[in-house]
């Protein structure tokens, strides 16, 4: 197995608050890696550091490295727009743009100048919507506003939008937290399919979800990485006492 994302001694501060402390993890290719921990432990912050979307927040400083494909994404020479295209992200609340379903999926193709011919865009839109199992439901209303979809459909659309630009890595920031259990289960099934092609990192505070879908799990607490191992080990036989207390439901 090859390492896809290598996080080395990574620190992050929000102005004076030290949110991530000396994190080092190697995330493997084409697997699902879950990050768990109580609210405020820094799991979302770490995820948002992998595509540098944290850069948009004022007062953020970092030290250390995150290497993707052998280069440090925090290097001055990094093309951040290209990085974000290569490292897609799905957010906690579905955030489709207030434009048509079709335009939502085509957006990434257009802004990144991946395709400009209508035929090519049409094809990619169809392919992307098919791979999130949304195509059959909405193929007749592609011109409708994306905001008319149900929450689950919106979240699928957001995933399709990411897939359309052909990233290598997909970051999921609590993608099911605003969905009902049935929708959650279906999105989880989708994740299992997507891992064949993509390296997936998911943040969740639903421990059962982490146990169900992930191969590896990182447990974080107060900005530190406590333990990182294969999921089964984290949930059945963790090395650290804090991990054990958390996964057995004693706090969090």
């Amino acid at each position: 197995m090859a390492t896809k994302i290598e996080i080395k001694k990574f620190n992050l501060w929000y102005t004076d608050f030290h949110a991530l402390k000396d994190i080092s993890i190697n995330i493997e290719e084409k697997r699902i890696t879950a990050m768990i921990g109580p609210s405020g432990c820094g799991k979302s912050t770490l995820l948002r550091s992998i595509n540098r979307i944290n850069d948009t927040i004022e007062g953020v400083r970092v030290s250390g490295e995150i290497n993707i494909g052998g280069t440090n994404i925090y290097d001055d020479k990094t093309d951040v727009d290209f990085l974000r295209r290569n490292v897609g992200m799905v957010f906690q609340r579905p955030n489709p743009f207030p434009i048509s379903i079709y335009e939502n999926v085509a957006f990434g193709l257009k802004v990144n100048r991946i395709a400009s011919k209508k035929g090519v865009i049409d094809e990619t839109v169809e392919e992307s919507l098919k791979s999130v199992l949304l195509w059959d439901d909405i193929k007749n209303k592609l011109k409708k506003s994306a905001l008319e979809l149900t929450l689950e459909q919106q979240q699928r659309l957001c995933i399709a939008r990411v897939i359309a630009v052909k990233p290598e890595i997909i970051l999921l920031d609590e993608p099911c937290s605003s969905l009902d259990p049935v929708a959650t289960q279906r999105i989880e099934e989708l994740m299992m399919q997507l891992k064949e092609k993509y390296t997936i990192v998911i943040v969740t505070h639903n421990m059962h979800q982490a146990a169900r879908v992930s191969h590896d799990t990182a447990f974080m607490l107060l900005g530190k990485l406590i333990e990182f191992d294969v999921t089964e080990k984290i949930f059945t036989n963790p090395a650290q006492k804090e991990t054990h207390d958390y996964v057995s439901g004693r706090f969090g």
Partner: protein
Amino acid sequence: MRKTIDSIIETIIFICGILSIVFVVMIFGFLLKEGFAFFKEFGVISFITGKLWYPTSDPAKFGILSLIIGSLLVTAGACVIAVPIGIMSALYISEIAPSGVKDVLKSCVELMAAVPSVVIGFVGMVTFVPLVRAVFDIPTGLTAFSGSVMLAFMAMPTIVTISEDAIRSVPWSYKEGALALGATKWQAIRRIVLKAAMPGIIAAIMLGIGRVVGETMAVMMITGNAAHIPHSIFEPVRTMTATIAAEMGETVRGGMHYRSLFAIGLVLFVITFIVNFIADLFLGKSKK
């Protein structure tokens, strides 16, 4: 005792609330009464499409086409100037400016809204009008163009503040989503933020237009007030508002001339009503 005070206060508040409606209805009723009396004698079509405005000659001619064109020309000119600048500065304030600059800019824009129109009028008259005359080498600087520029100053605060509101209320998650897909900051603003804010921006433009159409003092001082159909924006024009303001004092109460001015007021009222109605429509849409 407390109950009585309560009901008294409630009644007072009710009366105050209802008063504004009563006033609007009364003003409209008065306009209608005088205006219709005029239309009955002169006819709506010949009033609106008539090219000559000679209210005091014999026989008098009451054609307001040149006044309507004057108003529209000055308004359109003001929009061409104020809309792009207004939207750009709204974008700058809400998306780009560092917070210190932002606060200063916002107060400046609000201050601009507080400048009385007569002040804009005379400042324009003594500074801008001679400049226009010299630069374009025309017989007079009192032109539709001068009026448009000064009115653009008056429409700008409305356009900037309301568009800025609309842009700022676009959910952050839209922009974040766009950036996360590899869009540059400008792509995210142009393709997503501006699109999402568009109903609010259109409402802002409409309210700006409403202000310009109804503006009287500044246009009266700097557009030259010649009631003829202009061939270019560099000729003097006369607006509907300026006509009413300039002539109302000389009319005989109850006479045709007097009533014709009310008819102009009615036309003006209809225009601003439509503009405000469209603005409301879009404001409602942007709130959703």
